[in-house]
Structures are given as C-alpha cells and as structure tokens.
C-alpha cells in the first residue's frame, strides 16, 4: 500500500493520463459488469430447466429465490443472520481494538517486538481451523468459542496492519512534531494517528474478510446456529437451494461490510481533508 502511494508520488511529475473514470458514468460503465452475471443466470436457468443438472446438484434459480423467500418468511434466515452478524460485530470490535493496541506496541517498541513478536507470529499462523479442536475442549461450544475465534481472526490482521502503519509513518512527520515542540501525546494524536488511518483501515478490511472466513468455518464445524450452520444443515438435508441461499447471504454480507468499511475510511479521510 505504501509502495503504491510512492509510485503515484513519483509519477506525479508528469501530466498523468487520467484513466477511465469508473464511477459516475451511470449505466454505461455498469452494463459490461452486468453481462457476466446475467449470462451466468441464463446458463444456470437453462441447465436446470433442460434437466441437464438434477435438482439435488443444482437447484434452479427460481427454486433458490423461493427458498430464500420461505426462509426469510419463516424467520429462520433473519435469526441465523442476526446471530452470525452479532458474532462478527463482537469479533471485529474486540479483535480490532485489541489488535490496534497490540500492533502499535509492536511497532513502537523494539522490546515488545523481541519478546512477544515471535510468539505472536506463531499464534497468528494457526488458523481458526486449528483453534477449534483445542478451544472447544476448554470453553465448550457456546458463544464464547465463536467470540474467541472471531476475535483472534480480527486481532491478527489489525495487529499486523497497525504495526506496519506505525512503522510506515514518514520519519519526517515525527521530526516535524519534534521541531514544533509538540508533546508526545499531541505527536501521537495529531500526527501519527491520522497518518496511520489508511493502513489501519486496510487492516480492518482484511480483518473483516478473515472474520467472515472464520465465522463460516466455525459455524460449519462447531455451531448450532448461524448462517454457516444453516448451510451445513442444507447439506445434511440434501437441499442445495438452502446452501446457495447461505452463500448468497455470506457473499452479500461480505461485500456490504467491505463497502461499509471503505465508505467509513473515505469519510474519515475526507473529513481529515484528504483527497480520496
């Protein structure tokens, strides 16, 4: 991310040819992007309508829509989504804030890095899949398990991003703060923190992606509720329409969360006066 910024700076000298603007072109820029999904939908409908693929392998789009409506109407979908999103929110909040503090400590202090860094990297290397078998014996299958797994999933990318963000703050900014005679807290709050915003948000977005993977993993492997469980239940009942509804919900939610974080970053940076 830093590298990209620097290339942009380096080429800023020339009148950079402005690439095609992807936003603000209305339907004309959107239409090519719609070709593929529409084609997929047509193929899908054709494959199921002609009986090329049996229902238990690939249910028809209309079947999926119907199941979606049924699950939504019965409240199963919203209660599954509610529990999943709650877990996600708790994980992001806990893991994100712990990761931020820990990552800043790693970035700021050589000593923290030396004593705790290697353990942190080993800890980070074990995916949710590895934690479940051990944790489940220690804390059971209740909510605590998911909270720990998701917290860990969010903690790691945010910690790494915060550490890198701390280190990526141009030394010139720190010097500026010193030359201006600012207090350490002012140097942190007024200079370092704003300078770190883009990288930290990068970490948050990675964290949200990770959180989704871990959420689905642990709901599929060790849960009795949630979207991941709904999908596994669909597999058990041999109802692929339920599975596909789950995938759609997970995918859409993933996109939505990513966009929300981007928007939030955009707003914050814009408020801070950056051209984003």
């Amino acid at each position, binding site marked *: 991310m830093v590298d990209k910024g620097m290339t942009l700076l380096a080429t800023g000298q020339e009148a950079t040819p402005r690439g095609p603007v992807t936003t603000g072109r209305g339907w004309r820029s959107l239409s090519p992007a719609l070709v593929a999904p529409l084609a997929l939908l047509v193929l899908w409908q054709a494959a199921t309508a002609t009986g090329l693929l049996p229902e238990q392998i690939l249910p028809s789009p209309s079947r999926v829509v119907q199941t979606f409506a049924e699950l939504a109407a019965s409240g199963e979908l919203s209660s599954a989504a509610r529990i999943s999103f709650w877990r996600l929110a708790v994980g992001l909040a806990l893991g994100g804030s712990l990761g931020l503090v820990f990552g800043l400590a790693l970035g700021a202090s050589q000593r923290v890095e030396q004593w705790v860094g290697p353990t942190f990297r080993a800890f980070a290397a074990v995916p949710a899949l590895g934690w479940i078998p051990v944790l489940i014996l220690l804390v059971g*299958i209740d909510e605590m398990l998911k909270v720990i797994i998701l917290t860990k999933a969010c903690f790691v990318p945010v910690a790494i991003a915060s550490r890198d963000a701390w280190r990526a703050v141009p030394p010139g900014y720190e010097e500026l703060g010193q030359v201006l005679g600012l207090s350490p807290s002012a140097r942190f709050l007024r200079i370092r923190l704003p300078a770190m915003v883009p990288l930290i948000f990068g970490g948050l977005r990675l964290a949200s992606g990770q959180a989704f993977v871990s959420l689905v993993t642990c709901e599929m492997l060790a849960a009795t509720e949630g979207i991941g469980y709904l999908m596994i239940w669909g597999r058990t009942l041999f109802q692929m329409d339920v599975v596909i509804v789950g995938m759609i919900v997970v995918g859409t939610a993933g996109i939505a969360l990513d966009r929300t974080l981007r928007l939030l970053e955009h707003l914050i940076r814009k408020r801070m006066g950056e051209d984003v």
Partner: protein
Amino acid sequence: APSTIRLGDVGFGFGTPFGVGLQAIADAKGFIAKEFEGTETTVSWTYFTGTGPAINEAFANDQIDFASYGAVPNIVGAAGGLDTVILASTQGTNIFAVARPDAGIETLSDLKGKRVALQKATIIHWAALEALKDAGVEESDFTLIDLKNADQLAAITAGSVDAVFGADFLLPLEQKGIAKVIFSSARDNPAVSGFGGFLVSRDFVEAYPDATQKVVDGYIHAAEWLADPANRDEAFEIWARAGTPVELIARSNADTDFAEAYNPRLDGEFERRYHSALEFALEQKLVRSTPDLESWTDGSFLNDTLARNELDTVWPERTPAVSN
C-alpha cells in the same frame, strides 16, 4: 457386467477410514468378492466419514453403486431426488445416551430441562426422540443441540451440554470418567436401535440385475457368518480396524444378538420402522415430501437369496407391531 462394483459405508479411523458394520465383514472376509471370482468384475469399498450426507452426495455424483446407511439420511436422499432401491434391511446400531456424572441424571426421564446434544437428521436423532418419548420426555421438555460426534465429546467434556445421544464412540467418555452411560438401546429399549437399509442406485440395478443379485448373495453370506456366535470375536477384531479398541466394541455389543440385530428381511418390522422414520422426517421438516416406501423397496433379490440358500430359518419373518 460392470468392471467395478463400488460399495460405500460409514467409516472411522486414522489414515484410511474403515467400516464398523456388515459391509466391513463382507469386505474383510471377501464374501462379495467371492461371488465375482473368475469374472472381470472387481469390488471396491469407500468408507465415508461424515456419514449420511456424504453417502447421499456420493450417490448423487455417481461415485458409488451400493451403500448401507441410516434410514433418516437415506430418506432425506430419496426425498431430495436420489433414485435408489432398498435391497435389504440393516440394523445393529446400538444407541447410547451418556450424561455428565455431576448433573444428577440417572435415567432418560431426568433429561427434562437439560441440554442434550445429538447429530440431527441421523437415525440417532430418531432413536433419541423415540426413546425419550417412551420415557415420558417430550421434545419441548429439553434443549436439543445439533452437534457432530467429535463436538459432542468436546461439548460434554467442557460442560456445554448435560447429555449426549450417540453410538459406541461415546463409550470412551465413561472409561475416562467424563460421562456415564444412562441408556443403551440394546439393553433398555431394543425397539429404538438404529436401523437403515442396504441400497443400490436404480440405474445400476436396472443395468445389472445379475450383478446385483450376486452382491446381495455376498452381503447375506456376511450376515449369516456374523449370526454365528462363534464368529463374534473375529468380527470385533475386524471392526477394531477403524480405531476403536476391541474391548470397547465388545462392551458396546454385549447385549446385542447379531442374528437378530442384522436381520436383513424387508418384513413387517422393517416397514413399521421405516414408516416411523418417514413420519419423523416429515414432522421434523427434514424433507419436503416423503418417498413411497413400497416402490422404493425391492425384496426380490433378498428373497431369491434366502430361498436359494435355505436361510429362512436364520432370520424369522417379523410381524409388524401395532402401529401407533
């Protein structure tokens, strides 16, 4: 004739999973392979971990021709559009319930208000609800938690649940002092033992009726061998290959009469149980509609085998109990 006949069954164990049912016997003792001796046809086995859904998927993807598995998952499969045929009845799964020693649970009726784990949409699910109903506990009286086998062990160890319904994989818990057995179907209520069917895909049976007959022959020979009490210990040795110690298997089957438990007949008792499972599947919303049992079952191969080998006396025809 087909070049390979692919059989599937439920399996466990490290490395290559191994079966713990009648097919494991047929496999280990070569009963089915013997039927095809001297022909081009070979026989292969896949033991699926993940049980019911995995076997349904294997049928759907044309990865197996024959399989034996629980009635509930095979009803789910048939309702989902799998075109299979039931060739024989299978039973023998001893269902256990274990409870945390400190939870004050002695019998099934103590489970009122407790958290009970089991794997839903399996025959254990059916058996547990039936057993509890017989003990006067309704579904609304306890909290049911859907967990896979390994998670059940962890959950009761960590105290997340009070009791678990399952098969013999629960027995090590008692050995380790983590839980105690409060129910065994073979001992306490044989009517709720696990059961299922030996199924073939309709495509296969229509294309190769002769080969199907031979497979059924071999399968029944395995059942016949198992029915002989002299072979019990050898059977335990075969099943132990899946990783469970022999002593545990022996204990799990202590109350089981194999001749009775592995009765392959598609008789009145078979019908009663399947009807019960069909009703259960519908009630529990596991299926959107139920398959028609009569057209799903084909007893001709089994009857032919029994008649040719004069085996009618080994497994007496059971009359249906009064349906409730």
